[in-house]
């Protein structure tokens, strides 16, 4: 089957600084793919490259089979309509209410009567677990967790099949973060989404991801979650077997064996 997102031989260079040097990545349909890496390893640069926000120095980025590094802005539009992005801080338009934020992509891409616009936006707001009265609020009036959910609602406005999440649980308390992980799983299962997620959060990774790509030494090592934890690379070992990770790993394995 054709991969949903495929990155081949990606090189990103800023002046003399090389961020990625021959990075490969592949995301298949219906999986939750986690991107992990140390601070400054180039997770955000990778995401920005995949989203077409910056051109790579070399390499190709294929989304649904078309190489977005060679497409013009106009040619990118239909591709962009098929994926949604929830940025780290939400990036909600601060001058618009949550409802208007969700409606903005619809207004941009679809021609809809007002009540359909309203109904569909409210459906998306409810879908991500926000209360009805959040629709009329401005982003500044929302809590951190609600902002992230509203960002997901906006990302789902056009019923995409591919969803990008940039550190969705950062800055959330553990309870909200766990609830957000549940939301990710719920959406993935019910909407049959492919999800690409940048995260630091070990709990999130173990709970939601099928496969994980770790950026080490300017490249990516990716494998299923069960196998990546045994990868010999020292950073990956430190990440998955450090003090903070060990308890989590034990709990997950225990649960798996017990089941």
């Amino acid at each position, binding site marked *: 089957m054709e991969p949903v997102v495929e990155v081949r031989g990606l090189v990103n260079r800023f002046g003399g600084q090389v961020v990625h040097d021959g990075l490969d990545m592949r995301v298949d349909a219906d999986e939750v793919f986690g991107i992990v890496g140390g601070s400054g390893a180039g997770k955000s640069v990778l995401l920005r490259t995949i989203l077409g926000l910056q051109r790579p120095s070399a390499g190709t980025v294929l989304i649904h089979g078309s190489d977005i590094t060679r497409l013009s802005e106009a040619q990118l539009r*239909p591709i962009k309509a098929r994926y949604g992005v929830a940025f780290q801080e939400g990036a909600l338009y*601060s*001058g618009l*209410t949550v*409802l208007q934020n969700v409606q903005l992509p619809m207004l941009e*891409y*679809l*021609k*809809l*009567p007002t009540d*359909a616009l309203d*109904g*569909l936006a*409210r*459906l*998306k707001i*409810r*879908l991500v677990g926000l*209360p*009805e*009265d959040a*629709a*009329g*609020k*401005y*982003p*500044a*009036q929302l809590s951190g967790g609600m902002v992230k959910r509203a960002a997901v609602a906006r990302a*789902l406005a*056009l*019923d995409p099949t591919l969803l990008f999440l940039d550190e969705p649980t950062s800055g959330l308390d553990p309870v909200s973060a766990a609830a957000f992980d549940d939301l990710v799983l719920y959406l993935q299962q*019910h*909407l049959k989404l492919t999800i690409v997620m940048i995260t630091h959060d070990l709990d999130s990774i173990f709970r939601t991801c099928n496969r994980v790509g770790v950026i080490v030494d300017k490249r990516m090592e990716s494998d299923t979650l069960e196998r990546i934890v045994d990868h010999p690379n020292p950073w990956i070992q430190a990440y998955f077997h450090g003090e903070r990770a060990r308890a989590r790993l034990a709990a997950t394995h225990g649960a798996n064996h017990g089941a």
Partner: protein
Amino acid sequence: MSATDSNTHAVEVRRTARGLELELTGEWGVREVAALEAALGAVDVASVPVITLATAGISGLDLSGAWVLRAFVQRARRAGAEIAFADPPPDQLRLVEQTLAGPAAAPAEPGIRAGPEEPGGRALIAIGRYAVRTGHDLVGGLAFLGRTLITFAASLAHPRRLRPVSVVRHVYDTGITAMPIVALIAFLISVIIAYMSAQQLRGLGADIYVVDLVAIGVLRELGVLLTAVIVAGRSGSAFAAELGSMKLNQEVDALIATGVDPYEMLVVPRVLGLVIALPLLTIIADLIGLSGGALLCRYLLDMPLSQYVNRVNYALADTTFWVGIIKAPVFALLIALAGCYRGMQVRGSARELGHLVTVAVVQAIFLVILADALFAVLFMRMDI
């Protein structure tokens, strides 16, 4: 996309003994919502006992498509029809039901709702609101002035807390970098006055008074006023935008949390910097204005430079220059306060930032002109 063109929508209606049978086919994705709504809207559900839905022919059903279907189902049920499914109902429809039902689906519609209509009272309410808001604004502005002055006075005892480095930066930003534009405007103003007055006075043979008009006009009024207007546009907006975006970034909160008074760190240096810079700019404007007058008199009226200088000396009273320059620090205070006050009011959104920057500039210019008018009356009373 091609789906829209090739899509053979989407609803086929057949009458049966029990009621209607709808066969749904084609693409049912978010891009087809408008067409699907139209197709289902055309189905007359009045007094139909049973509506049977055959959904097996649907392809590409997503949440938006399912939402349209659900809206139709609800409409039919409200009209008294019973809904039956020929095939198992699609998962997406169930998901939409599940999402929109549930306890949180309160019927109350919050958000912006107009209050109870009061006939004829709307304008009155608006005026009242405006008056109250203006009152609050006035009090808030005075409080801001007071707090700035108190902070300034408190820092006088400890000169380091006046943040000399910061003050110098603001003198540079608001003063030095404004010199070219201020000089250009001053020159053009003197040209305008000289031309206008020369045209009028030549007929009377009173050419020499052109010099009086230029010298007194520039030194007393126009030099300082136009400099202040330019600075209000340049620096008043910059103050409001800087402080406003710092508020949005929580930088101001971070200062307060660190125990630093944002008035001491941000407001006082700006006010002080501008109070120093504006008089200096005014002196430059005066100089350029007088030079421009000399140039014009030389070429427009064939007046030698020595005669121009003599006439300027004769026309100017001892107080003329000071009457102009004394206004500069007052104008500077008003501009800086308007900019900083509005900047510190920003909370929440980028739109508010834009709005308050606009308000800051408009109010700064208004306050400058109002103060100038008060000065004019005051100086006339004082007979200078």
